[in-house]
């Protein structure tokens, strides 16, 4: 028992277990399908946030272009589903049956060659994983080889983001333009819009996310993770010790890109469309704030960050649309000025010490409230990121204690 306990403490698996419990058990039990689908959508952003923790928190490289990879992953999944949805039978009223409707509207009479591979699911899935990673490799290899600093890298990634958005919007006939790719229905004949499919996709998404966190945690605990940290803090020293610093950064960027692409593909599967509004500069920076709110060093925190900010966004942009941008601004500035380590940092600095004290007393920590009830309730009822923070803060430690005890 003690060995399990110490392993949990050392590897940080306790918090991952809590998270898994919340998103796999608690959310599906307490929410209706509509809400659950919404959570599933937010969890796809969490892929990006987890990638950013590895890239930004551990690697010290800030990318403002994660939307590019999220978008690429999503678009490629959407292209496959669109081709399946526009078979000659259903599109026979078009002047050219068998091609996606937006191509027909733009007087394109033949499926472009680069759409052809997306007729096949294995090829499409492979493309979702490989093409964003390859693009990330090309960008980061070219830049880090020449020892480009973090600020320049951020600006270049932002430019890449702008390029992709303008390209997608401008090439309406090939990409669906501003509207994006819509009316996605089936994968290999399996309808993704039924209730059952939505549940399955949610659990698939949750499972993949947990797997991604475990993978990243494993990397963090390995020598590679230590090197990433060392490189972030004293790049030259790592370089002088004989390590090829640039390749580690390239690795972190490619990893983050691949995770984002998976998130994008899952987004399309669950939400049923893809549009340039998820690719551009604004969503890319918002994705950074998910990681920042959760804590740029905490994988689990990134997921909570993504959930909290998005719940806040949904609630506030529906109820007080004028206030939302101000709140978002306050969130950006507050996180940077007051809580650079986000929720996870608050937990580490304020809650954990107290927790340690309580543990010393023999009678403490026995009847902790069922932790799982609180975090999902937090975003739903209080909505405001600020109102949500203290609750989530107190809820987390109880949960951690609950599993480790």
């Amino acid at each position: 028992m003690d060995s399990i306990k110490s392993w949990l403490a050392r590897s940080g698996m306790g918090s991952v277990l809590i998270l898994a419990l919340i998103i796999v058990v608690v959310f599906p039990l307490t929410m209706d399908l509509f809400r659950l689908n919404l959570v599933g959508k937010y969890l796809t952003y969490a892929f990006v946030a987890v990638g950013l923790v590895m890239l930004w928190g551990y690697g010290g490289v800030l990318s403002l272009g994660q939307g590019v990879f999220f978008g690429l992953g999503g678009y490629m999944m959407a292209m496959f589903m669109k081709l399946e949805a526009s078979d000659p039978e259903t599109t026979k009223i078009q002047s050219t049956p068998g091609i996606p409707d937006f191509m027909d509207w733009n007087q394109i009479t033949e499926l472009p060659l680069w759409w052809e591979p997306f007729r096949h699911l294995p090829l499409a899935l492979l493309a979702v994983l490989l093409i964003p990673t390859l693009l990330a490799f090309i960008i980061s290899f070219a830049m880090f080889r020449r020892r480009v600093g973090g600020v320049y890298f951020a600006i270049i990634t932002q430019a890449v983001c702008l390029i992709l958005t303008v390209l997608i919007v401008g090439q309406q006939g090939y990409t669906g333009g501003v509207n994006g790719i819509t009316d996605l229905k089936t994968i290999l004949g399996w309808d993704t819009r039924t209730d059952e499919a939505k549940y399955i996709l949610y659990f698939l998404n949750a499972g993949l996310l947990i797997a991604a966190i475990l993978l990243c945690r494993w990397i963090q605990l390995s020598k590679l993770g230590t090197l990433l940290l060392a490189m972030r803090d004293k790049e030259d020293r790592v370089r002088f010790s004989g390590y090829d610093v640039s390749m580690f950064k390239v690795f972190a960027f490619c990893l983050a890109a691949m995770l984002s692409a998976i998130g994008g593909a899952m987004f399309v599967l669950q939400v049923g469309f893809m549009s340039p509004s998820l690719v551009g500069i604004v969503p890319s920076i918002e994705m950074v704030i998910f990681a920042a709110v959760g804590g740029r060093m905490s994988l689990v925190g990134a997921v909570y960050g993504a959930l909290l900010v998005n719940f806040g966004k949904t609630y506030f942009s529906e109820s007080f649309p004028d206030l939302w941008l101000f709140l978002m601004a306050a969130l950006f500035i507050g996180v940077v000025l007051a809580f650079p380590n986000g929720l996870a940092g608050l937990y580490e600095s304020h809650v954990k010490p107290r927790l340690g004290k309580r543990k010393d007393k023999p009678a403490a920590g026995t009847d902790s409230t069922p932790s799982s009830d609180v975090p999902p309730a937090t975003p739903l009822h209080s909505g405001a990121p600020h109102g949500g923070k203290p609750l989530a803060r107190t809820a987390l430690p109880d949960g951690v204690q609950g599993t480790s005890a």
Partner: protein
Amino acid sequence: MSLTDIMNITLMQGFAGLSLFSVLLLMGLGLAIIFGQMGVINMAHGEFMTIGAYTIYMFSSLTETFLPGFASMYFPFAIVAAFCIAFAFGWFIEWALIRHLYKRPLDTLLATWGLSLAMQQTFRSTFGAREVSPTLPDWLLGSWAPAEGLDIPINGLFVLALTALVTGGVLLALYRSRWGLRVRATVANRPMANATGINTSRTDRLTFAIGCGIAGIAGAAFTTIGSTGPTSGSLYIVDAFLVVTFGGAGSLLGTVASAFGIAQTQSIAEFFMTGSMAKVLTLMMIVTILMLRPQGLFASKIRR
């Protein structure tokens, strides 16, 4: 189409590029001071430009209502006001926000992005979501036709002259004034500058405010070319950053050269393809060149 027609079209297209060049350069100049010299990533720079643009609009509507006879004269005063308001706001922002973050450049990026969101929403609730344009004085309208079939818009000429004036002023101030000396000393070696008695934190604040003020002038120039909306500034922010990085941070001449190059590439490309493809092509070229030559066109001699 005769040869003179082609010449005229080339000239006019080139001049359209010059208008874009002016706005980019004015945006880039402010950013070159803030980002190139101080290393602060000011994502709200575009919103400082919007402040300038809205100041012109406010002046225009105020003179229309209260001093109709003054309508042909207000523009120069409005430009000065645009500078002053953006300057004052920049001063305040440096004091409230930026000075806490000098050691964390990537965090400045996030904080100023938040700032830009708040500013956009403020513009939206103050001036409305619709785009507005000031009533330009008569002498700015119309065009100048030096030859048959060749029309050069006067507002373009005016913006070009304004840009030349501001650029000259900034160069002069940076290399010939006490302020410029202090800025360059602070950039080159902060502790040493401190040791020689330069108040570096005061220099930083002044520098940031001047950069923002120039963004205000960029906004003033912008109103003569396009209409202003709450998010007008954010359209130019990425381009402005690319102008500075492409020119080589820390080099004002590089900023001028890269603004010219980018604007001309884009407006010439626009002649051959759609606007969005021209933009994609231009950005792709910049990014590719920056990947091959990250220090930009004119590398600064300062090691960082």
